[in-house]
């Protein structure tokens, strides 16, 4: 939601626009590839010139970092945002600042030939400022649900010059999820609440990929009162009377609290923690996540 917003704070105040200093900034980023560069149209509406096979990639969001590695662009990764900590080799990359305020200066020093930015967390103002300084930034707006994740895998594969691997991973994820859906079809449906934060209570909404993942594995999200990640009150959960509570909280020490003890699902022990991997970051790993969720739900159906 963010890339599109904001804007050069300058505009309202620019009573006099200073002549821009002659900055030969960015120059032509060193690319070792001989393939001709291409122009891509990104989700901020900008046309960005990037090499056919970028050699110095910076990713400004954890999911983009993970997907870039998964499609085989790991060798070309040159930098990542502060919280971009997966997979393991990403931890050693130069840090480019928090998602909410990437360091323009650090990115200039890095000289990337492709910067992947997300509309879910990177500010449009920084993206625009980086472009003004000659940095090729491609802004990506994640699509909805599982289809959005698959599409992101394909797009990152294409942008990083690994279109084949992106396509292969995305279709593999889709076929694994289809298999999960087929396996769950004859089973009795479960009523689930998918909660991703306890205080305030935040649930996976109607169009969240976790809701679709649960749906594929045979569980309906009874707490999906809106799109996105809606905030619930405790009584919403108590009234929903879910058969199972899925806790999508990476920190295993964070639980629901005593108020939830009266929930039949909690009494029966039908509270499942979704581990951070493969569940909590949208990537091609969600195919495996669907299979694991199906297996995790199996013993609960007999309760």
């Amino acid at each position: 939601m963010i890339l599109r917003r904001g804007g050069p704070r300058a505009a309202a105040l620019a009573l006099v626009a200073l002549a821009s200093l002659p900055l030969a900034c960015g120059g032509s980023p060193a690319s070792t590839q001989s393939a001709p560069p291409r122009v891509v149209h990104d989700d901020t509406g900008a046309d960005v010139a990037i090499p056919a096979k970028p050699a110095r990639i910076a990713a400004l969001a954890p999911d983009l970092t993970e997907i870039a590695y998964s499609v085989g662009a790991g060798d070309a990764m040159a930098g990542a945002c502060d919280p971009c900590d997966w997979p393991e080799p990403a931890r050693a990359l130069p840090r480019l600042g928090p998602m909410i305020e990437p360091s323009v200066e650090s990115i200039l020093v890095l000289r990337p030939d492709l910067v992947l930015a997300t509309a879910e967390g990177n500010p449009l103002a920084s993206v625009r400022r980086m472009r003004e300084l000659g940095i090729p930034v491609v802004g990506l707006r994640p699509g909805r649900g599982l289809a959005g994740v698959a599409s992101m895998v394909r797009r990152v594969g294409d942008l990083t010059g690994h279109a084949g691997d992106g396509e292969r991973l995305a279709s593999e994820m889709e076929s694994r999820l289809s298999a999960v859906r087929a396996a769950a079809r004859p089973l009795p449906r479960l009523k689930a609440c998918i909660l991703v934060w306890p205080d305030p209570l935040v649930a996976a909404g109607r169009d969240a990929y976790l809701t679709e993942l649960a749906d594929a594995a045979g569980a309906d999200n009874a707490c999906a009162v809106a799109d996105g990640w809606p905030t619930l009150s405790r009584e919403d959960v108590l009234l929903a009377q879910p058969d199972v509570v899925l806790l999508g909280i990476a920190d295993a020490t964070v639980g629901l609290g005593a108020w939830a003890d009266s929930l039949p699902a909690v009494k029966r022990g039908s509270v499942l923690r979704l581990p951070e991997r493969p569940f909590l970051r949208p990537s091609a790993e969600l195919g495996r996540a669907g299979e694991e969720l199906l297996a995790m739900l199996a013993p609960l159906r007999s309760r």
Partner: protein
Amino acid sequence: MTRAPLTRARWLARLSACVPALVLALAIAVLVPGGWRTNAPRLPARDAVAALAGGGDDVARAVVWGARVPRAALAAACGACLGLAGAILQLVLRNPLADPYVLGVSSGAALGAVAGLAAGASLGGAGHPLAAAAGAVLASVVVHALAKDAQGRLSPERLLVAGVVLSYLLAAGIMWFVSLSPAAESQRFLFWLMGSFGSASWPAAAGVACTMLVAVALLVPALPALDLLAVSEEHAADAGVEVERSKRLALGAAALLTGGAVAAAGSIGFVGLVVPHSVRLVLGRDARLLVPASALCGAAFLVLADALVRALGEIPVGVVTATCGAPFFLALLARRRAP
């Protein structure tokens, strides 16, 4: 109220004592690399010096002239605006707790900005600073209308109360937006509210500087009057000051300064409160010195704070201004007990 007369020479000498602070702050901001907490890519100080001198490679020039210098310029302009606004308001309202945010102008700008962010695409890229400026103007008009007493004079008490209460109302509006927005977006709102120079550009810095020039043009004729107004309005009137006109000019300038700074960089707290007080403790309370010195020291303080923001890895600048400014000011307060 007795006070040693401030000759032109002493005025100039004391004011120019603030200049080295600003120069030092600017030098630190331009030369010191960022991202100390992490293994961020860094430009060595040597390369920054080379780029500053007109040499260096493309990257060094882009970092220094494209990122650091405009950023320091914007921080300096905003710091000067907030320091000025704080000094003026403390003088005119005769209230030591007055700061640029008591008039509701900043909350108006912030609500405008957040509404602009939320309305997004419809307004295009320029939406949010324009919306912030509109919010600042609107809030300022409302507060001024409410602050007139039965005789049509601007009453400092009414101004403060109206400003503070309007701020609460506007802050509630902001929280409506924050709580009804998706997580990523509300995080962006909150971050914006704490202030940032991370995307600074030359036009932004120039815009704030121009806003400041307009405000200064309004202020200069009112400066001797401010000195008298700070004692009492009756005193000023006896001395031949056009009290209402001076107050209107000064408060209009303060609204302009606050709106400009907030629209460009978010609501950065603490500068406008603490800088004028620190200046008063060190240089004395003569308005003719206090007002320009607050601008210079506000600029130096915010430039330095933003250098620290870069060094610490882009934390909100408001966090740094309060963390560093409060202990500094308390120490100053403890050392100087004289009025």
